């Protein structure tokens, strides 16, 4: 028993140094005010300012973007996973690989690539001009941010859903057909419930990081679109206000934990054999 525990030691140390201690530091900065005399006093002022109107509107915008991104990813990934599942296993895994291939490249690089593509003088606008159409302002728009988010997060939606699909025994589908269900009824009454756990995992894996994303919005949305991640970064890097920054982080963490709990709750009673 003790030997087994010893194997976990490096990870435990890692956890303490890089997760527990930083968390405590965040809580410290968010709730403790250091006076000019150097005294430390407990305060909720930073939290209150983190909950102020301006940062809340940024938070709402981030939630809105993350929600749109999640819905779009789901709408794209679910039919794709269904399609992949129906392919023969060899071809399916090749197509699946093609979907995953972009993930092997750093997402910053990919986002930079989209900057170039969407630019006023980029290839997309050149094609439009060649077709005799007026050039479009594509970069630095809301659309560009959401597009960038969907592009970056799509694999995180596709993979868990596809995994859930591969676990479905095809005899369930045949049984449904045998009992009189047409394709649509088979989808809604058998396939959808059996892939529910994959959908929930996918939604979690897209929505959570999408709320806190900051680079994509800056690169593709410019200064117009400030997301919660950008706000956070500004507090630390630009304003050097660690206290307010930490308070914002605490607000966000509470929000995350709440939504995680919500997802968990809706995941209750899911069938065995899911994810």
């Amino acid at each position, binding site marked *: 028993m003790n030997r087994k525990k010893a194997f976990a030691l490096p990870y435990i140390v890692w956890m303490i140094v890089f997760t527990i201690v930083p968390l405590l530091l965040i809580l410290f900065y968010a709730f403790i005010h250091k006076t000019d005399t150097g005294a430390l006093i407990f305060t909720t002022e930073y939290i209150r300012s983190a909950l102020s109107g301006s940062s809340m509107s940024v938070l709402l915008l981030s939630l809105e973007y993350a929600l749109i991104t999640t819905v779009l990813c789901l709408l794209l990934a679910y039919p794709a996973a269904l399609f992949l599942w129906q392919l023969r296993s060899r071809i399916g895994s090749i197509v699946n690989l093609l979907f995953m291939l972009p993930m092997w490249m750093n997402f910053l690089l990919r986002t930079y690539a989209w900057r170039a593509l969407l630019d006023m003088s980029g290839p997309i606008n050149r094609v439009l001009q060649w077709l005799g159409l007026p050039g479009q302002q594509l970069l630095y728009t809301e659309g560009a941010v959401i597009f960038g988010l969907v592009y970056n997060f799509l694999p995180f939606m596709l993979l868990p859903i596809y995994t859930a699909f591969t676990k479905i*025994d095809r*005899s*369930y589908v*045949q*049984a*449904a*057909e*045998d*009992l*009189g*269900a*047409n394709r649509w*009824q088979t989808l809604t*009454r*058998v396939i959808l*419930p*059996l892939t*529910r756990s994959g959908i929930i995992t996918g939604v979690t894996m897209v929505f959570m990081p999408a709320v806190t994303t900051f680079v994509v919005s800056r690169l593709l949305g410019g200064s117009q679109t400030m997301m919660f991640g950008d706000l956070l970064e500004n507090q630390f890097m630009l304003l050097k206000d660690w206290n307010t920054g930490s308070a914002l982080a605490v607000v966000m963490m509470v929000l995350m934990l709440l939504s995680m709990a919500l997802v968990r709750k809706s995941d209750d009673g*899911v*069938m*065995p*054999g899911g994810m």
Partner: protein
Amino acid sequence: MEKQRLVLLKNVCKEFDGVEVLSNINLYIRKNEFLTLLGPSGCGKTTLLRLLGGFETPTSGDILFEGKSIINTPPYKRRLNTVFQRYALFPHYDVFDNVAFGLKIKKLPKEEIKQKVREKLKLVGLSGYENRTIDTLSGGQQQRVAIARALVNEPELLLLDEPLGALDLKFRKEMQLELKRMQKQLGITFVYVTHDQEEALSMSDTIAVMDSGRIQQIGTPVMIYNEPVNSFVADFIGESNILYGIMKEDYVAHFAGRDFRCLDRGYNNNEPVVVVVRPEDIKLVPPTDQTVNGVVTSIIFMGVHYEIRLKGDDGFEWLIQSIHSAEVGSRLGIHLDPDDIHIMDRSQYDTAESLEIKQ
């Protein structure tokens, strides 16, 4: 009394990637019949069932259901249901919702669904299990739910794909009786796939013995057992001694180094044939120069009878079932009455290799 033909298969062939798994199947299924497709694994029996269910389409030939072709009818429009090999119960539904699935698709009134589901659960002996989840049921209980789920739709035809394969022996016997009872009680036509010959013999009205994608013989269990048309059927249904021989003339067969009187005629003189002798038909007698003689090599007690192996003087190893024991090493003779000897064409089924394998 000729009952109405419910299903008719005409020259049905099925290939997978150019490999023929069913060749030229002609078969009719009468209303209210219990038909069993019996054969070893890979003989094409499950493929035939899947063709009926609509999960495969024949490469050529036609399948008629009450006189109308159904080969282009999707499974959900066919008036039949299937009990799948591993039940395929929906894990995200409880027992009630599994059984009610087909009725909900048909949008029956709620009360009617409730009543029908309850009725069928009672039929399979699972009253009160409505709210149980599938993973809390034993294999046998899952089996019953699968049967109830199929029967509740009141199909014209019920297809069962080795439904008892996963159950232990005692429970199998019990379910065999119950299935037969349900079939009688409901008056539904059953097509039953199995590789278990005992199961086939005890449950079926008609058995179709299959091998290598062909139907080898169709008939009542008694016919198939007593009058197998070839050595494959003889070997597969019950145990058999299969020997090479020749028909010397009508009613006289020569095998195992001797002439025997038999009931067969119509062969050419000295035509090569295959001789099949059931182990339970052999009588052991004191050896004389008028009998086939040999030495007992092993005796196994099987409960009702002893299974005796006797090495004949010509080297053939006879399998004999007898209610009397014998001494290993003792010398005994074999007596066969004319109706114990079954003569078959050698050309019909047996190639030299297939006989070698059997011996």
